[in-house]
Structures are given as C-alpha cells and as structure tokens.
C-alpha cells in the first residue's frame, strides 16, 4: 500500500471536521455542552490541534497553504460556535421568560422596615407645623413647675374650685407637675417684651386615672400678644387652624365657657368630621352625640389679671390664648376609641400608624 500523502491526510481530516462541526454544535442543547464541543475542536487537546500536529510531516511548500486553510476553517468554526451560542442563549432566555411567574404573594423584602411615629406625635408635629406657618414660634418650658407659674399668676384664686378642674400632682418640695401648658404664657410674658406669638407643645399631668383620663397627657397652647388683639382675631386663627387641620370648609363655633386665665373664655367646637355629608351638612353620629359638633379646644382673650401679673399693661396690650389636648385630636383623627390605648404602647397598635 502506498504511503499516504500527509498533505492529503490533513486535507481529508479538515474536510471531515468541516462536515461534522456544525451538526455537532447544533446537537448541543446547553451552553456548557456547546462550549465543551467547541473545546473538543479548538481546545489545546482538540481535534484541530491534533490535525495541526501532522503539519510538520507535510512538505514545506504546502504548509503555508494548509496553514491558511486551517485558519480559515478555524474562523468558520468560531462563527458557527458564535451563532449556535447566540441561538442557545436566546432559547434559554425565552425559556426563562416563559417559565411560571414569580410568586409575588410572598412578602416583599423591604429595604428598611421603617418604624412608626406615635399617633400623638404625628398630631403634635402637624399642629406645630400649622402654627409655625401662621407665624408662631415654639417656646419650651419645664414639666415641673412653680405653683406661681402654673396657677397663681394665671389668676387661679387660692382655695378656689377652679383648681378642681386640674387636680395636681405635688412634689415633696412643694413644686407641681404642670397641669397644662399655660405655664408657658407666664414664662414667655415675664421674659419677653410683647408683641409675641408662641406655641407651647408639651406633656402635662393631672391626678385623674380612670376610663377616660390618663394621668399624663399632652397639650399645645398657642398665644398671641399684640396691640388691639380682639376676639375676632382669635376666631380668625381658629378658623384657619380648623381649615388646615380638618380640611377646607370645616365650620367652627365658640361656646362661652370658663377658664380663670381668659376672659371672655370659650370652648371651641368644629363641625363633626365623621358625619359630614357631601353638601356640608351633618347627619349626626355617635361621635358627635348627634349634635353635629365636636369639642376640640378651649380658648379666650388673655385675662387682664394675667397681664398685670406679668408686668404687662392690659390697657396697652391684649392677646388671646388657646389650648388643646393632643390625645383627643389623635383619637378623633385615627378613630382610637380609648385614651388608654395611647399609653400602652402595644406594638400591634403602634404599627398601625
């Protein structure tokens, strides 16, 4: 048998490989199988490398031509691999896209599980913001107070039943836990010259602990002292406040009442926000006891006695003060039925706000 011509052998091997590589690539059904097949042909120990090893036996004059052929073939294989790879990837993506949808009923993974502000704090921030927009600034003061600032200078007569409305906690050193934020009126008016416009949000204490009272609760006091402040100005601020806190068109009414440090004094009702009808009338409901009105705060013109007790001339200056309990506003706003819930700090309750 005649010895085979190495050139022919290489040519034959290349031709065989050329015929077979595409079907082999196409048979691969995963990317890995395709890459493996590619490596079998083009890898270091691949079939093409094996063919090239025979190149040395070929006559020198034909090596160059064979080399070019091999290179061209190599490109052909790579192109085939590329297109098969692309095809496979497209199939894979299509398979992924048409697979069953994710179960989005599983809980979402929140970036940070944000905490909750206390409902009373939310109301406090809102009320403070409204009064700030109206030009009032915040005046801080202590929770443990001199009797003088909490009662005497506010015009509470000694041994008078008016103090029954505010049964106090006394300290063993004769101070008291402030029963209202009105102590700030005294602190402001004895340290700052009028005019002034302040709010005083804060914690207050009264010696009441029953189903509808908490011994500690929160108030915001607002007061304005200037020349020629009238009851009409108080009504103006109240109307604006009600519109901003409870929505446009919220009606406000004043009912005369008594607080020792204001005269005239009044309690303020707003139109019930729970049974309001589209035509702005009120149907009456349990929350407003079928009156159509809800009491939200107490107010009045600052009593001349209070001015005098602070060294301000009531003939020259006048002013108004108003004070509200934040718990009541929060309970109305969020439909919280019992004040005690606001102080139990039950996580199931706090998580609702």
């Amino acid at each position, binding site marked *: 048998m005649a010895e085979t011509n190495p050139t022919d052998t290489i040519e034959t091997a290349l031709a065989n490989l050329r015929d077979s590589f595409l079907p082999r690539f196409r048979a691969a059904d995963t990317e890995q199988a395709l890459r493996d097949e590619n490596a079998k042909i083009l890898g270091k120990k691949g079939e093409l490398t094996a063919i090239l090893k025979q190149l040395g036996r070929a006559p020198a004059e034909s090596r160059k031509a064979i080399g070019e052929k091999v290179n061209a073939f190599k490109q052909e294989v790579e192109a085939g691999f590329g297109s098969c790879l692309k095809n496979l990837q497209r199939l894979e993506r299509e398979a992924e896209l048409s697979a069953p949808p994710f179960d989005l009923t599983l809980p979402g993974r929140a970036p940070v599980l944000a905490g909750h502000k206390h409902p009373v704090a939310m109301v406090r921030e809102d009320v403070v913001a409204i009064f700030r927009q109206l030009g009032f600034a915040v005046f801080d003061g202590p929770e443990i107070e001199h009797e003088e600032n909490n009662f005497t200078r506010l015009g509470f007569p000694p041994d008078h*039943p008016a103090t029954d409305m505010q049964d106090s906690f006394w300290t063993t050193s004769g101070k008291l836990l402030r029963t209202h934020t009105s102590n700030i009126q005294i602190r402001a008016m004895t340290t700052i010259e009028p005019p002034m*416009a302040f709010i005083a949000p804060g914690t207050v204490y009264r010696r009441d602990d029953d189903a509808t009272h908490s011994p500690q609760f929160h108030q915001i006091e607002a007061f304005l002292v200037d020349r020629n402040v009238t009851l009409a100005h108080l009504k103006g601020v109240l109307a604006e406040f009600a519109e901003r806190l409870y929505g446009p068109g919220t009606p406000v009414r004043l009912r005369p009442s008594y607080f020792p440090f204001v005269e005239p004094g009044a309690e303020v009702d707003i139109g019930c926000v729970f049974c309001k009808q589209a035509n702005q009338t009120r149907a009456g409901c349990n929350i407003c006891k079928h009156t159509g009105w809800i009491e939200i705060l107490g107010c009045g013109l600052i009593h001349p006695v209070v001015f005098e007790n602070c060294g301000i001339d009531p003939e020259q200056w006048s002013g108004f003060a108003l004070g509200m309990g934040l718990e009541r506003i929060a309970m109305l706003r969020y439909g919280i039925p019992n004040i005690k819930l606001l102080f139990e700090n039950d996580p199931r309750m706090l998580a609702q706000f």
Partner: protein
Amino acid sequence: MKVSYNWLRELVPLLTACPSDLADRLSNAGLEVEGITEYGVATEACLVARVVSVRSHPTKSGLRLVTVDRGAGVLQEVVCGAPNVPAAGGLVVLAPLGAHLAAKNMTIARRAIGGVESEGMLCSEDELGLSLDHSGILILPQALAEPGTTLAAAIPNARDTIFEIGVTPNRPDCLGHVGVAREVCAIYGFPFALPSPGQKPAATDHQTKSLVAIAVQDAERCPHYGAAGVVDVAIGPSPLGVRYRLQALGVRSISNVVDVTNLVMLEYGHPMHAFDLDRVGGARIVIRRATSSEKLVTLDGIARTLVKDDLLICDGSGPVALAGVMGGASSEIQNTTNRVLFEVACFDPRGVRRTARRHGMHTESSHRFERGVDPGDVVRVLDRAVALTVELAGGSATAGQIHVQGTRVDAEPAPPPRRIVPLRAQRIGATLGVDVPFVEAIGILERLGCEAKAGTSGSEGLTDEVEVLVPTHRPDLVREVDLIEEIIRIRGMSSVPAVLPAVRASRDVGGREELARRARAAATSIGLSEAITFGFTSESVLSALSAPPPAVRLANPLGEQYAVMRTTVLPGLLEAVKNARRHGERNVRQFTIGPVFLSRQDSRDGLASEASEKDSELPCESMRIGFVLAGERPGWLEKPKSFDAWDAKGYAMALVERISGQAARVEPLDRAHAPAHLHPRGAAFLCIGTERVGSFGPLHPDVVDSLELDGEVLVGEIDLEPFTKAAQAPQYVNIARFPASVRDVAFVVKDDVLAGEVERVVRNAALPLGETVHLFDRFVGGSVPEGSSNLAFHVVYRAVDRTLTDAEVDAAHANVVKEVAARFGAMLRG
C-alpha cells in the same frame, strides 16, 4: 347640676321652646347642657285606676286577682303579686296593654299567669321609673284624680325632662333653678321676676329670737347667719308631687321638712339646714372655729377629728355641724320633731373648701358654698322655707327672723355691699372686634340683674361710659372685661367675625421641639416605633436600672409604682415590652423621647444653663432618647434570629449619628465598669469624640428577672442635650476618579483578639493606598481551630491621582498580611 324643664317653665311662664332648643340656647350662652334625660315617660301611658274588688288567684298562692275601674266604668281584672294591694276604693296605677315601661324595658302584653289571663299590670314606682322603690305597688292618695286619668296628668311632676348642665365654677348663681331661669330670660329676652315665696303664713306669738340665741364668733368665716322658725309641724312624707320633683333631680325624698331644705336649695342654690329646735342644747347656736382635735360625727356616720381651721355650728353642748359641709346626727329632724329652726347662712367660700377637702368630703352644700352663695337672698330663702314648711307640714311660723352679721343682730339684715364696675363703650368693640351698640350692651347687663347709671365722663345725652352696679348673685363680675364677656355671651359669640390677624412672628425659645422631631425622624428611619412613656416610675425600678436616685418625689402619687419622677427613660419602654409579651407579642422595637428629672448636681446642663435663680429650685429636665429591642431581628423568609448585642450597637450608633450628624464611637466596658443594669459581657458607652453620650447593651439577666420581662431585652439610652443645636451640615469630600483595586484577605486569629483591633491594624498597614477596610465575614468551626475565628476583610486600594499598578497593590497588600501576622500571630487563610 340637674335642672327640671317643668320647673323652669313654672319660673318662666313665657318659655315655650322645646327642651332640645332650650338646651342649644343654654349651651351657646355658656351653660353647657351635657345631657338630657326623660323622667317618668311611662306615666304618660299608665292610668289612675280604682280597686273594685280583690280575690285570691285560683292556683297560685301569693297572687291576687284585682278588678279595677280603669275609667268611665270600664272594669278590668289583672293579676297582681304585690303585698300591698289596697281594699276596694283604693287608687292604684294600671299599666294597660301596650304600655311601655322604659325603666324595666318592658311592654305590657297579654299573658297568662297561673292560667289566668292578665291584660295589664299594677305598677310600683320602680316599674314606672319614678324611684327605686319596689316594695309594693304605688298607692295614690284618695281623690287624686278620676280613674282613667294618665298618671302624668294626675301628678304633673311625675313626668319631666331633666337637663344635666355643666355649671362652670364661676357661676354659683346657676346652681339653683331661679338662677337658671334668670339666664333663660336673658337669653330669650323675657322679663324675669323672682318667684313668690308662697302664701306668707300667719305668725304665732312666739318670737324667733326668744326661742334660740345665736352668736357668731368668727364673722370673717361666717359673715351672715340667718334663722327662722316653724312650730307645731307634723313630720311625714311629702306629697307625691314634691317627692317626684326631688327624685327627678336625683335627690331622695326623706320627710316633708327635710325635703323643704332640699327643694329650696335646688330653687335658690342656697344650701340650708333644719334643726329640731328641741334638740338644740341650751337653745343656743354658736358659730365658732373648732379646737384642735375636737371630734364630730357627721351625718354620714364618720367620726371626724377637726382642726382649728374648721368652722363649726355648735349648740349648748357641742358641735352639731361642719359649717357649710355637713350636719351632725344630734339635732337632725326626727319623726317626732315639733319645732323646726331653719338656718340660711353665708360662709367664706375658701374656708368651706379647705374643710371639705381636708375631710375628703364633697356635698351639695359644700359645692355651692365653695363657689359662693348669694349673700343678698337670705331673707328670701328663709321666707320660702317657712312658707313651704307650713304648706307641707302644717304648723305656724315664729315671728321675725334672726340675722347675725358680725356683732349686728337684727330681724332684718343689712344689705350686702354691691360692686360697681365701670364700663366704657369703646372697650367693647376693642375687645370683641365687633361693634355692639352701647344701648344693646347695657340692656343685656340689665337683663342679668345689673343696674347701669351714667358715668361722670359722658357728655350730655350721649354717654360712652357707665357705672354698672353688679347684683349680689354674680360674684364673678369684677372687672370691665367680665361685663364685656356677659355681653357677648348673651348676644352670641357667633356674632363675632373671624379675622386673621397680621402676626408679628416670634423666634423659638429653647430648641427641644425641633430636637425631639429630629430624634423621632432618626429613630423611625431605622425601624423603631415610638412609645409615649410616663414620667413617673418607682424608686425600685430606677435602682434596678442603676439610674441616679430620684431627684423628685411626688407628695400625692397615684401609687407606689408612680411615686418618683424618672431619671432614666427606660422604665416605660420595659413596661411596654412586658405588656407586649403578656399579649404574646415577642417582638418589640421601640423608642421613646422625653425628659429625665435630675438633681442639679446629676445633670450636665439641660435647662440649668438658662435657668433663672428661681428656677434653680426646679430639677433639671434633660432630654433623652431610649430604645428597646426584644425578640427577633426582621428578616425575609429565613430562620428567625434573636436580637443580640451587635443589634444594640448598630441601632445605638445609627441613632447618634443620624441625630448629631457626627461619627459615633463605641467604648466597650470591662466588667468592673459596666453599668449594673447591663449584661457585663455586652455593655458599652457611646461617645462622640471624647464625650460619652449614652450607653447600650443587653439588659442584665438579673434585671430581666426582677422586672419580670420574660426573656432577653436589649436597651440603649442617649442623652439628647448635646445635640440641641441643629446637626452639622455635611461637608462634601471629593469622590475618586481613578479605579480601585479590591483584595480580600482572611486571617485566623485567637478569640481573645478583638476584631476591631485587627481591622485597625489592617487599616493602618494598608495606608497610604488603602481606602476602605471592611470586615465582611466572621467564621468559626469547620476547619477553623477551636478557640479561634476566621476574619475576612475586603480591602479597597486606590490613589487619588492615578490608576494603581498590580505591583503597587500587591506590595501594599503584602504589608497588610505581614503586619497582621506579626501583630496577632494570625494565620493567613487562602
């Protein structure tokens, strides 16, 4: 104050408004109607009936069959179980078929009782809603009314509408029906007239002043003591009309004479007292202050030990009443009383209040005296009581009244002084912001009992200032502004327009509201929820939490658990954890913001710095934020893991950094210095720079047990006072423009080597090219030798001015490995 609609209509004949309209008008004038109840509704459906015959029930012993005439000769037989069915001719009350008895929530239906059909029921007062008496059926007086008349028509007072009015403490005049009637007239513009005291009874020859001698030893505490007498009275029950009027107003009927004192008090608002004159020892009444430790048994059966400030009514043998508060048992009206002495006095409101509070008493009498009774109505009230007594209990009035005013004793009192208050027309508009014609204003005041006369400054014909003579029943009208309030109160506050003022803005004083707002935002942003916690706690809890001893103790706490003011904000948070766990909620992540109350020595600044001299008597209130972590760390569909010390560290640092805008540092503590309430292995201080601002860690297991917290809890507390100023604005640092090279490296180190130390050495060794060092894994077990852990770091190398070459990075990283190995004997892991 309960107010009868019927009675108001008797006092104000022109009043036609229905109860709900009247209630609105009263509320809008400052007499807030807090509730309206109906009294005796069933009396409109129930009929007067006459017993015709009575026979036994055929089968049931104890029941009887009563045939009654229910009007117009119509007879009806009903089954009745009451023990007191009257004989034929007696008048009873029949609830006919269909009548609704609201008090029993029951409608009369046809029913068979023991086989006998009954189409109605004979009623007790209890069933009619007239009183709580259910001892037997109501038996009416003979000839009260014809059978068939409704009970409401037969006894008008058996049906009434009762207003519950929240009378403010400045309005003692409205603690009686006459005062409320005066208001009603002022509101509606009706003329007001005081009621007639009734038929003036013929007086006997007995002079009141010869029956009893009265001496007032403390005229300051008792400026006026008036008395009048009735002799030959017959004590007995009051007529039904009187009983039901009292009952409707919440007062139990006792006997005709005692009922007189209550009726007159409810009419005029002036409490009074009735003595059995024959039991007044020595026929003497002395009003004096108690001696120290003197004893008196009051009508409620309680023996009271008195002090010198208490004012007493005494007879010849000793104290008989605590003046203005409550009588004693010794001289009260008996069934056999024949001679009655009525007392109508004026006591100093403040003294009555002190006595009532001292003895823990609050009576109808003290309630009115504390607020101030009308010093001008004593004669009128006595006249009324005497006339009513003669009407209800017979007898005759003694001649003349006794009035003691200081040393003056006379049959007529000296009129009490009346206050004069000037009123300027101009001030009305200047105060209210609405123009009220002066004539209208004065008219309102006159309707309330004031008298106005032109002041001196008015020009001829046109006056712009008047002097207002205030009636004695209005102790609250003292200043001009009080009159202006009356004007707008009656005119209606709705007549004032709403005008937004031009506010001259102020600037914040103190900065705690903003500080709290910032702290709140920071805490909620890291997943904590806000608790509002009590300022008071107990001394034992403070001591368990190794907090400073209380600086403030309450003199009248609600209980031992709330006896002192807190010096740490943790108690309330731990209480929340305890409550939550009791309800089966294991996971609690909460914070609270508020002051602690420290002695001036314990505090570092707080209010102290700005406090005036007087305020240095107050404790220092220092703002804190505290947080608590209990239960499991939030995760996503993975095996839950409990919070541990590193969670506490993470929350604590995030809080401080977000609130302050500055980098926080943790200063771990050795066992000797850890706060006693924290776990000795996990306690640490939080610092900014060199300043300690807080602490955190797991709660000590002994504290967990002693506070009954039922499981591990982590806590942290941070002083907010250093952050009162707004957080520093962050300053921009150039961001890198050249690429970084990242190398990971892991070391096996002994457990006593602190990870932070290793990190610090890595960081220093990587300089100057090392930009950040991040410990990303800590691993124990597996191939890591016992007692060691594997720490893996990402080290990022970067230069600001060029791209680093591999050789540079390799050299820097080799130095890191070398340093750590040299320093800790650490093995490099591949």
